[in-house]
């Protein structure tokens, strides 16, 4: 409601009551029935307010601020069904250089883990795509002149959305399905994931053993959840954007995951070939950051127009 409207309502309320009471009070003192008198004024003022005053049912939302950049939004974007926005930034993350050997993990401290996973088990820190005929181990001391696809890179829009759009994304969070983090075969699945501020993170324990989920967040509230065999589901939410929050299991030290908490839904994690895509973007100029747990972060800026698809690759090297 506008301030004027509020004032009008308040005045009506006060005046009419005052008049009514005055009538009652006066009548008591003077022992004369003045009620009819004050009632008349009450009706007069109320009626005039109703007829000429503000409308309390204001359906039309006026936008709170004019967005300062290129686009004016009139309808919600980012619903794939709507297809209002068709901008896309896609590409591949690569690693170039002397590929590190994959670390072996020993799961024998817990019989339940050792039974589930094949032998040997490998760490997920660096997962490279050696091409169609690669073996899981990769080649131990391969010197690669070319580039290898790098999995588990978190790619997201670091900047570029106007405040109005960000508020819109915030409002949409309640409708989003939860992000699932599972503990299966003594690993977190997925190893790297994105989630929006306020979105529900549903944590599952699909293993017949005790895990815990220790999130060492700095900007968010850190948490440490024990999940025994019978504690199959727990949920959490993050209040602030934070890239990235390390999550690990204290009982099984090789288990780790990373959560990228951002305030919009435009994020992706590269697949086993290193590919990612950010879809349904409005036109604009965006700062895109790619993060990898070992090789650090890379930042690039890209400008797209409506329905344009731009390719953006990231090439990581050994530090």
């Amino acid at each position, binding site marked *: 409601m506008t301030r004027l409207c509020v004032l009008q309502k308040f005045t009506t309320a006060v005046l009419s009551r005052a008049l009514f009471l005055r009538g009652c009070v006066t009548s008591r003192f003077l022992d004369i029935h003045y009620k009819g008198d004050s009632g008349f004024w009450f009706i007069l003022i109320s009626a005039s307010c109703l007829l000429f005053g503000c409308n309390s049912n204001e359906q039309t939302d006026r936008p709170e601020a004019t967005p300062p950049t290129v686009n004016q939004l009139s309808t919600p974007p980012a619903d794939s069904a709507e297809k209002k926005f068709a901008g896309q930034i896609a590409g591949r993350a690569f690693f170039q250089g002397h590929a590190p*050997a994959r*670390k*072996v993990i*020993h799961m024998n*401290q817990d019989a339940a883990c050792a039974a589930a996973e094949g032998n040997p088990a490998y760490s997920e820190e660096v997962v490279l795509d050696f091409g169609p005929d690669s073996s899981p181990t990769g080649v*131990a*001391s391969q010197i690669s002149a070319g580039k290898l696809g790098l999995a588990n890179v978190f790619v997201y829009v670091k900047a570029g959305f106007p405040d109005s759009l960000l508020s819109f994304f915030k409002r949409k969070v309640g409708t989003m399905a939860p992000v699932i983090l599972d503990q299966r075969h003594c690993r977190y699945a997925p190893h790297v994931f994105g989630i929006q501020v306020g979105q529900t993170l549903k944590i599952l324990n699909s293993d017949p053993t*005790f895990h*815990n989920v*220790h999130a060492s967040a700095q900007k968010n509230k850190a948490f*440490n959840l*024990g999940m025994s065999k019978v504690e199959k589901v727990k949920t959490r939410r993050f209040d602030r954007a934070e890239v990235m929050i390390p999550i690990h299991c*204290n*009982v099984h*030290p090789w288990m780790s995951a990373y959560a990228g908490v951002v305030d919009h839904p435009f994020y992706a994690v590269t697949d086993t070939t290193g590919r990612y895509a950010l879809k349904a973007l409005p036109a604009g100029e965006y700062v895109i950051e790619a993060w990898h747990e070992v090789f650090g972060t890379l930042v690039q800026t890209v400008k797209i127009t409506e329905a344009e698809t731009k390719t953006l690759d990231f090439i990581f090297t050994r530090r």
Partner: protein
Amino acid sequence: MLDWLPPNVSTYGGEIDYFFYVIYYITAAVFFLVAGAMIFFMIKYRFKEGRRAIYTHGNTTLEIVWTTATFAAMLILAVVSKPLWGRIKQQTPMTQNMATVQVTGKQFNWEVLYPGPDGEFDTAADSAAGTLDDYQVDNDMHVPVNTVVRVILKSKDVIHSFFVPQARVKQDAVPGHTISAWFEITQPGKYEIPCAELCGFGHSGMLGHLYVDTPEEYEAWKNEKWPPAAADSANVQTPEQE
């Protein structure tokens, strides 16, 4: 009752057990004397109509006697316990071929760090010079039999306690402190290292294994971890980042 003690396999474990037995016999004797006297009095002096209790307020001589006797016994027990305590906790025997291992307690595992063939823990200088040879592994501790093993205890998060029941060794691992403990085990085998100080909801089940190897086994293990002639050890891992 002391039959339930886990079989002792360490050098000073036997001495600890000896004190255990001494105190056991003393306390058992005292208990049976006291309980016996109580039961005897309860039967002999049970209520009889017409009988009058002995009207006495005490006996000063008796007070002095039993006070002095108890005091002396307790003081002697304390004094004779001291040397063993000193030998275990205040000194580490420095022998020729002792093994040193660093054990860092963390929720909910024991992080074991071996100094490698050079006998020293890696420093920044080693990192620069490329002579890193420490080996770190979780929960697996290999030591040779009949050798003094020095354990350097640290903690990454909360208080844990390094405990090997059969060796009778226990020492808390405290964050912010580096604490030395030692033991020498006389029998090869596989022993458990539970955590003996509440450290969170994973405290139960926080378990390492101590492999006490015969000289041959120990050599074999060392060669596996630090291959003698290899230039590039595939299994060397630097300490994990936080």
